């Protein structure tokens, strides 16, 4: 039993390593990291009025974080499977002695770790706030964890959609739209589509789907198990869907 778990884990890690090394042998990684850092800085210091607020926290940083993800995470996710399909390597990968689930998980983890790395590289912002004042670093750590989990949610959606098409642009646009829906599902803009005809129970569920709501509570330093479970479920659900999509749509 444990050897089975071991070999599955190794299979996942093998796929992950390959995928991750792929990022760094092309300009994708560097372009992504630089843009993510520049944009994070710009949003935090200029639009977020980091200095003018006079508060020793990273609220302006985390406030714009989801909006950056909305466009940058789909840019990473779009190539996950669409590129394998376009280049034909999907046939190579899925005829190796690995399960589809292991391949999906390996590729997802690579992209997630990569985004995690980009997120860690924003540490100068954290250094700045510690230099200027005495922030509650517990809240900031919680914010980073929440942010990474949310990125995982976006990424799982993008990975699944990327498996639907060989066209990366299509994958990108669809992912942005779906992620946007998930982000805002608690806001009137999305809720208005449902109020009036949907039962209250469904409305509550939809409202509860909002990435922003769950992220907001974590980034305030409240690590509620329900929020963690929520992101874990979102990721699991979309990766399972991703696996099923691949099983059904391998050929074209």
């Amino acid at each position, binding site marked *: 039993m444990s050897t089975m778990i071991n*070999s599955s884990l*190794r*299979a996942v890690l*093998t*796929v992950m*390593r*390959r995928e991750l*090394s*792929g990022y760094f*042998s*092309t300009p994708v990684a560097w372009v992504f990291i630089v843009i993510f850092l520049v944009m994070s800085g710009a949003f935090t210091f200029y639009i977020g009025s980091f200095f003018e607020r006079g508060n020793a926290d990273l609220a302006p940083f985390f406030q714009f974080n989801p909006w950056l993800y909305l466009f940058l995470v789909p840019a990473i996710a779009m190539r996950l499977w669409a590129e394998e399909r376009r*280049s*034909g*390597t999907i*046939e*190579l990968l*899925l*005829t*190796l*002695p*690995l*399960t589809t689930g292991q391949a999906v998980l390996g590729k997802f983890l690579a992209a997630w770790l990569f985004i995690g790395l980009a997120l860690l590289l924003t540490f100068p912002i954290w250094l700045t706030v510690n230099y200027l004042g005495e922030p509650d670093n517990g809240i900031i750590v919680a914010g980073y964890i929440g942010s990474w989990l949310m990125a995982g949610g976006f990424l799982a959606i993008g990975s699944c959609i990327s498996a639907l098409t060989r066209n990366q642009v299509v994958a990108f646009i669809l992912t942005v739209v779906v992620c946007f829906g998930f982000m805002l599902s608690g806001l009137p803009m999305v809720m208005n589509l449902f109020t009036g005809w949907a039962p209250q129970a469904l409305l509550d569920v939809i409202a509860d789907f909002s990435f922003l709501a769950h992220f907001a509570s974590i980034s305030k330093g409240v690590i509620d198990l329900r929020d963690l479970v929520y992101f874990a479920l979102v990721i699991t659900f979309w990766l399972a869907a991703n696996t099923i999509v691949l*099983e059904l749509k*391998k*050929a074209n």
Partner: protein
Amino acid sequence: MSELRIEARSLSKHYGNLLAVDELSFEVGSGEVLGFLGPNGAGKSTTMKMLTGFLTPTSGTAVINGHDIIEDSLAARRSIGYLPEGAPAYGEMSVRKFLEFIARARGFRGRDALDKAAAAIERLNLDKVPEQPVETLSKGFKRRVGLAQAILHDPEVLILDEPTDGLDPNQKHEVRRLIREMSSEKIIVISTHVLEEVQALCNRAMIISDGRLLVDDTPAGLIASSRYHNAVTLVVEQPERVASVLSELGQARKVELREGELTVFPAPGESLFEVISDMVRENGWSVSELRLEAGRLDEVFRQVTTGEVGK
């Protein structure tokens, strides 16, 4: 235990309403080099994709080396080396890194994985380019990388989808040599629409069209079924006059004149070459070419797959 074989049992694949492979059943044993022949879209690739576990059959199954491709897919895949059509590879990786990835994915660890990759590099003569990214290589080298990843784990079964397609004659020759080298101890299945390849490589050929198995024979057997088998072709001055003389021959069934070449087809059981070469000498015809036809594979192929050429 000589369980080493492929056994396809009524393999079928539908894409919506399209029937790509229709109840295909066959067995391949050790030492056989089987050529899948067929026009484009005949179902060759689909069949290979099912055997290698990429596509799930709509119905039917296959057993590879004792492992069912549906029930026991991973074990079946372990005993297969597969070169997909076009030899896809992760282009940004170096040849060595790519092969090391394949080795790890095939369950080799640490030092072992490095050794397997190095051995495959040596076997396929890739030692000049191991650190180059795959995408910068020529087509011939890329194909060798594809073959290297297929044979890396020394599989019992090799499945190669159009291994020489798109290569120049030298590269084709090279790839064929490599395949022939490996053929003694393995089952090899290749698909191709190049007929010469079947003659050059295979000891068994299956012609597939519209997803159905039409012919299963040795290449020699295929050629013998050609209407050109044992016919005599000559290039001669005044071919019309010679043709009319030859058509009087009792041993000749038919005489055809096409593009300056005169072909005489034998009646069943007759041989013509001796008779005609004697006649040439006796009549003093000025012949620039005289040959005995072995048979024409392309003509058999067209006849089987389209029924276009009548007997």
